[in-house]
């Protein structure tokens, strides 16, 4: 029974990993690609490791530590990459025109 | 069977890295292709040392002292690959230092700027 639950979780995690790869290929510009890669692959990692914890209940503490480490590093690194991409001026796709970082930096610069 | 799959994966990686190193113009992509070739070589070396139904050559609760010579995988390729990985990192660092100097002097990252040293 525990193995069935673990296997289903690993399968869902593998599907999320696949959708991360698909998103990185098909998304229009750099920012959306980074978002697809980070969110889907972090969630896929968490689900695969949780499924593994059902297979080997003795490893639960170590797997929780690994999940914590992945949650600490993956979003922070994609945040740093996105800020660097915005700084060197990579254009955004689409015509929404909403750039929250540029507006926040302008208000910070114009305040004395 | 397992070692054949891993061996073919490593040989494919070497071929892809070789193709990339010969085809690309941007020097950073050539450096990535060299790193890929190095990783493929490490995988090939470790795959050759696999023993059927073997496990890692470390004596602990999974592998007893008496049954180690029957069930352990060959330790010598693993020892060679450990040093080879660190050397690969150092060689990549030297190549990247050359890429930085190329950008300083010629203001471009394409190896077409070094045309006079071609054959």
């Amino acid at each position: 029974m525990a193995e069935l639950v673990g296997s289903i979780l690993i399968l869902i995690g593998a599907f999320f990993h696949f959708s991360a790869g698909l998103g990185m290929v098909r998304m229009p510009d750099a920012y959306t690609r980074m978002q697809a890669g980070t969110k889907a692959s972090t969630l896929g990692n968490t689900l695969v490791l949780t499924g593994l914890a059902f297979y080997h209940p003795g490893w639960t503490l170590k797997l929780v530590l690994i999940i914590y480490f992945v949650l600490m590093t993956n979003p922070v690194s994609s945040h740093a990459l996105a800020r660097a991409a915005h700084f060197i001026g990579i254009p955004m796709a689409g015509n929404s025109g909403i750039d929250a970082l540029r507006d926040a930096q302008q208000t910070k610069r114009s305040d004395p | 069977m397992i070692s054949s799959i891993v061996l073919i994966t490593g040989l494919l990686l070497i071929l892809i890295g070789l193709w990339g190193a010969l085809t690309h113009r941007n020097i950073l992509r050539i450096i990535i292709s060299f790193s890929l070739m190095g990783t493929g070589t490490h995988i090939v070396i470790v795959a050759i040392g696999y023993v059927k139904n073997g496990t890692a050559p470390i004596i602990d609760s999974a592998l007893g002292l008496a049954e180690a010579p029957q069930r352990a995988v060959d330790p010598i390729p693993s020892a060679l690959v450990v040093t080879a990985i660190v050397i690969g990192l150092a060689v990549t660092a030297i190549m990247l230092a050359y890429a930085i100097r190329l950008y300083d002097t010629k203001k471009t990252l394409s190896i077409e700027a070094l045309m006079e040293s071609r054959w």
Partner: protein
Amino acid sequence: MRRASIVFAITFFGLLFASVAINHTQSVSLWPLARSYVELVPRELGAPNVITGILLNYRAFDTLGEVAVLFMVAAGVGLVLGRQPNPTVADPPETARPSSEIVQIATRILAPLISVFAAYIIMNGHISAGGGFQGGAVLASCLILWLLADAQFQVDVKLLGLLESVAGVLFVLVGIAGLIFAGGFLDTRVLPLGQLGAFFSAGAIPILSLLLGIKVGCELSVILARFRA
């Protein structure tokens, strides 16, 4: 012409690799040298990890040579990149753009974790998987995290160079002690073997692992710090 020669080279190597892959048969037992290593290392050296026993005793001369290669690479990178920082490539540290708050806080949480993990890998090299090279690389990755996150972080290259030279000299001194007190150069049986699997066991292998980890970590850090400016 160029494209034809590239295709020729790829097909030639592809056929060569295909013949290697087809004629490959899985071995069913270890060949005699590997079998003797797997039997001898736990019995004579007292180290459960056979790979570390090979790297730091039976083939320790290769490890010393590889450390020398790393030192040569550090000197080479210092020569190529050691001139005055070129303003087209990097900003000087005083006016560099600071990183965002999230990255700084995450770095302060992660750097102690990474250092403890590196120390664990180095010191457990003789009991389970690990060793000097792996731990040294993780230690250097902690330093590159600081370099990327903090714009004002200055690496003291002279102190790291001194530390790695001292570690290298101590490594050779332990080897000479093996020449005087035990079987030969870099023989690790100068210290008592202890119990198999205990922390203080396997002769001088933990000491050699520690020195190797410090040396590799400092060398890789010096190489990576040169890329900053």
